[in-house]
């Protein structure tokens, strides 16, 4: 589904943001991409989407990425941005949902059918004609995911999908992610969510892969996580308590 082979990228005048990254993702895998701030998660996602030019080779959906086949590859990729406002640029949810499919050649009627079906599957029919700027943060996040699902992608990439969600909406999101039958790469600091939604984790630091393996194995390795400026997920670390001075 997605292959990175010795991929390197540096921002202009900066240190390498990706440094010889190689990995393979198979169909149906659920990948958690973790790392501290500035580790290179978002850059890796952008590279996978062909938004930045890199050294090395990236193969997505059986095609080696180059300028000529970029739109063909992107047709099969869905990217959920961290900020839903940046993603949903059309006035209403339904307009946003049909934007992608119509651009990729689907007729408007057909695209609307797919969008309606997607909304029904997610139980979000009530948001269909809502204005994007009049929704709550949680609704926007769900609608943003719906707009990508309406494109029927083979591979979904999500940047911090649980950021700024309240616990209830976060739970709804996790349940929704677990039901989606597509290959997913989820970049997040929410390690508890990663534990619940992914079966494999890639840990990166300073643009390099530090660990790549089974979710529970990686996320329960306290030393590994702490060496890479992370902590054990709350559910594995136990309930954190504030240290209070002893009462006399």
């Amino acid at each position, binding site marked *: 589904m997605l292959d990175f082979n010795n991929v390197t990228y540096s921002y202009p005048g900066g240190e390498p943001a990706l440094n010889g990254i190689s990995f393979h993702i198979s169909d149906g895998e659920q990948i958690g991409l973790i790392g501290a701030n500035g580790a290179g998660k978002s850059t890796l996602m*952008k590279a996978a989407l062909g938004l930045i030019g890199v050294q090395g080779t990236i193969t997505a959906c059986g095609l080696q990425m180059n300028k000529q086949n970029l739109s063909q590859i992107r047709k099969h990729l*869905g990217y959920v941005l961290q900020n839903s406002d940046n993603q949903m640029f059309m*006035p209403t949810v339904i307009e946003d949902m049909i934007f992608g499919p119509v651009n990729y050649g689907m007729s*408007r009627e057909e695209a609307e059918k797919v969008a309606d079906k997607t909304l029904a599957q997610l139980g979000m029919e009530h948001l269909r004609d809502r204005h994007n700027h009049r929704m709550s943060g949680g609704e926007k996040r769900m609608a943003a995911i719906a707009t990508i699902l309406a494109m029927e992608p083979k591979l979904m990439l999500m940047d911090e999908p649980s950021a700024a969600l309240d616990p209830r909406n976060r739970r709804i999101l996790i349940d929704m992610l677990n039901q989606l039958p597509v290959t997913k790469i989820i970049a997040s600091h929410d390690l508890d969510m990663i534990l619940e939604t992914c079966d494999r984790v890639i840990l990166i630091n300073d643009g390099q892969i530090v660990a790549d393996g089974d979710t529970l194995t990686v996320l329960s390795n306290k030393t590994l996580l702490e060496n890479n400026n992370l902590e054990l997920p709350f559910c594995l670390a136990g309930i954190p308590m504030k240290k209070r001075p002893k009462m006399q």
Partner: protein
Amino acid sequence: MHRLAPLAKLLLTMLYILVTVSFNKYDITGLFVMVLFPVVGYQFSFIPIRTCFYKLRIVMPLVCAVGLFNPFFDKNILFYVGNIGFSGGVISMVTLMMKGIFCLMASFLLVATTRIEEICRALRQLHFPKMLTSLLLLTYRYISVLLDEVSVMTVAYHLRAPGQKGIHVSAWGSFLGQLILRSMDRAENLYDSMLLRGFHGEFTYAEGRNSSRHGAIVFICCAILIMLVRLYNLPAILTSLFI
């Protein structure tokens, strides 16, 4: 009005604005009749006129201020009412105000009864450049986001500058700079998102309501009435009939 085809509404509004601004600056009586069209439109659309004035309360004074200096430049007395003489400057100032207000009322009526995608689609049908319609669509979508950003920055400023009224001049530069940088950052992300969903330079707009026979009749009647009002000074004709 809500059921009229978007293209018909757009054309009518454009015609109305063109005709309204084409009145001579002293032709206050002819212009006065033009108020009927938006007023009737608001009635048919079940939109209270006060909503228009309330929503446009920031723009209206600016429009009204356009001819404010005319009385100082054009002091030629045109007519007297009793002992009070009305100069050309005063008349042209009132005419300009009326033109501005009427045009705003008509534009607001169009926006209030038509969705933005329908307006953009109608504009594209009239072969408006796609860049302009895209700009219009995205401005409508992002104006609230930009205002939210301004509001957040203003609150952040005031929390660290208690007792200050407004934003100090020394901070204007960095304030605006930050806003521009944030907007550019957002614009870049937004464009990425569009590219990833196959954007190739043109938005596709929803099929609007098609013109019905009823709609076509309303459109033709309104257009004829607007042109009649422009060609004949109805108040003057009515006055000559009775006096």
